[in-house]
């Protein structure tokens, strides 16, 4: 098991390096000159030259890349061209916000999606199944921003139950922090719940037809135990993979929702950085996101092995 995890980590290293090259080159290919963006109206060649020198933009590109990677390994992702803050600091500030949002959204998705998926698989072809499918389809089709706005109107403006926006750090006031984030997490979670529900349903439908489920029934076990233990355990693999990928997506993909609920998260940081041609920040964010993705994949792989005894001996 340990050797398997080590092997997976070793495989992850070249992947991360490749991503870093890719991210770096893509940045360089983008139109627009960051120095111009920084200098604003003032186009004094001397100032521009000074800035170029300061941010080492005159070095050959491979040298720039090596400098960047070397620094990144030491935890230094450069300095934001825009705010002059270290990128690492910016990320460290925003990342926990987004992770909290993502975790809560995933929890919503799991709590809604998996039971709904199991139920509609077990009750296939009945009213329950159709209702679950219609709800799921609506969950997928309703745009997040619309649902977000409607929720704010209803829950915050009309009923005055939850705050419409803002963010309270978890360390400051955990209860308030969680309640403030309930609505955005729900908005993000519903769309994911629909995806999860569909996948849980199809995985369960496949497993429920299997011979070992018939064996479990032949033992005289109650249907609930047959479904929840014997079938669900074997349907978990695709569900775990999907959850890991969805979580990875949430890290950088919650931009709209963060915007609507004015949450100072990662998504907003990305968008601002891209619009301002803040190279260092964009690079840092993409790198962190990619590493996050790879880490989630690693977790999913480990979960596979834990779930599937056949892989454990391999």
């Amino acid at each position, binding site marked *: 098991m340990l050797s398997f995890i080590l092997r997976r980590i070793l495989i992850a290293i070249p992947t991360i390096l490749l991503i870093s090259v890719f991210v770096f080159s893509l940045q360089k290919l983008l139109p627009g000159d960051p120095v111009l963006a920084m200098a604003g109206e003032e186009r004094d060649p001397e100032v521009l030259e000074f800035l170029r020198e300061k941010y080492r933009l005159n070095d050959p590109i491979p040298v720039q890349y090596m400098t960047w990677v070397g620094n990144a390994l030491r935890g230094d992702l450069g300095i934001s061209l825009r705010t002059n803050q270290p990128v690492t600091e910016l990320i460290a500030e925003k990342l926990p916000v987004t992770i909290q949002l993502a975790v809560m959204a995933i929890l919503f998705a799991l709590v809604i999606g998996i039971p709904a998926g199991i139920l509609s698989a077990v009750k296939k072809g009945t009213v329950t199944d159709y209702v679950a499918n219609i709800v799921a389809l609506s969950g997928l089709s309703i745009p997040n921003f619309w649902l977000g706005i409607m929720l704010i109107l209803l829950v915050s403006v009309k009923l005055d139950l939850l705050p419409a926006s803002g963010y309270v750090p978890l360390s400051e006031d955990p209860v308030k922090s969680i309640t403030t984030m309930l609505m955005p997490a729900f908005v993000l979670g519903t769309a994911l719940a629909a995806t999860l529900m569909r996948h849980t349903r199809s995985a369960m439908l496949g497993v429920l037809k299997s011979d070992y489920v018939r064996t479990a029934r032949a*033992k*005289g076990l109650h249907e609930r135990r047959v479904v929840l233990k014997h079938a669900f355990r074997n349907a978990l693999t695709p569900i775990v993979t999907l959850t890991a990928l969805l979580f990875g997506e949430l890290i950088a993909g919650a931009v709209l929702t963060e915007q609507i609920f004015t949450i100072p998260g990662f998504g907003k940081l990305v968008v601002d950085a891209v619009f301002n041609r803040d190279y260092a920040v964009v690079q840092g964010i993409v790198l962190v996101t990619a590493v996050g993705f790879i880490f989630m994949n690693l977790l999913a792989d480990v979960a596979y092995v834990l779930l599937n*005894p056949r892989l454990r001996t391999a």
Partner: protein
Amino acid sequence: MQGSEARSDTESTNPILQLHQFSLRFRGHPEPAVDGLNLSVSAGETLCIVGESGCGKSVSAMALMGLLPQDIIDIPNGQMDFEGHRYDLRSDGLDASTRGDRMAMIFQEPMTSLNPAFRIGDQIAEAVLHHRNCTRTEATESALQMLRRVGIPAPQQRLREYPHQLSGGMRQRVMIAMALINNPSFLIADEPTTALDVTIQAQILDLIRELQSETGMGTLFITHDLGVVAEIATNVAVMYGGQIVESGPVGAVFDDPQHPYTIGLMSSVPRMSGSRDRLITVPGTVPSLADMPQGCRFRTRCPFATDNCAARPALSDVGPDHAVACHYAPLEQQDEVRCAM
């Protein structure tokens, strides 16, 4: 009643299981897939149901266990007497507390019949824990003993292994252990040796026979292999198109088959001794449910069919406990049948 039953030749023993007038339809098909089945099995005896694929033998076994999904199956008729209880198969089959306890089943596919995610020991012990009031340790202990009884080497170690670590034969032994751990009085074996290679087949048949003589359970053994029938059966019921066409003690049916279909089946088995003529086959194939003829269902393939066969023949006695559903039984000259085929 459609004639007599496939019953034990030891009249003194009471049957453990009796099935009366069991019929079954797949939803959306008006023709019954199993039609008026009567079976009777006593303690210690093995009734083999023989027939081609699709003749309704497996589906009947599943129905007895209550394992058929209600949404695709309709049971318009059928009662089962088991251990002194009468079950109306139309409404509710075997209850979950009897299933896996007093009546157990082993299946054709040992490779896929065990749950890949759980240890062998836990899967066997689960059957005990569910039906008996005992601790996990006790259940695991009886799982261990059961693994020993079914002849699995190093049972202590096997308990902790997963299905993928076992061969097909070993998995079938595990399935048998799981089925028999609660000492059922009745075992349904649905082609348990079909997926295994020949030497393992013989071992598994020996094992089943051995355990049966130890426990005295009644067995319903489903197969299409006449060699297996000769090995293991006390009585035989030959099924064709969802109906029993011939039934009786294995000796009588094998030595003196009376239904043209049974005769055809017997003649299509290669023998070590005797003539080396071409093997005889039964012409044609089993018609699909939609094309099933009225009356005798075999008549489209039968060399002797006449207009009389448009009426369904009743299962009637031709010898002691030996019954045949054919208007022309007992046939005087079997060789004629063989020639005609």
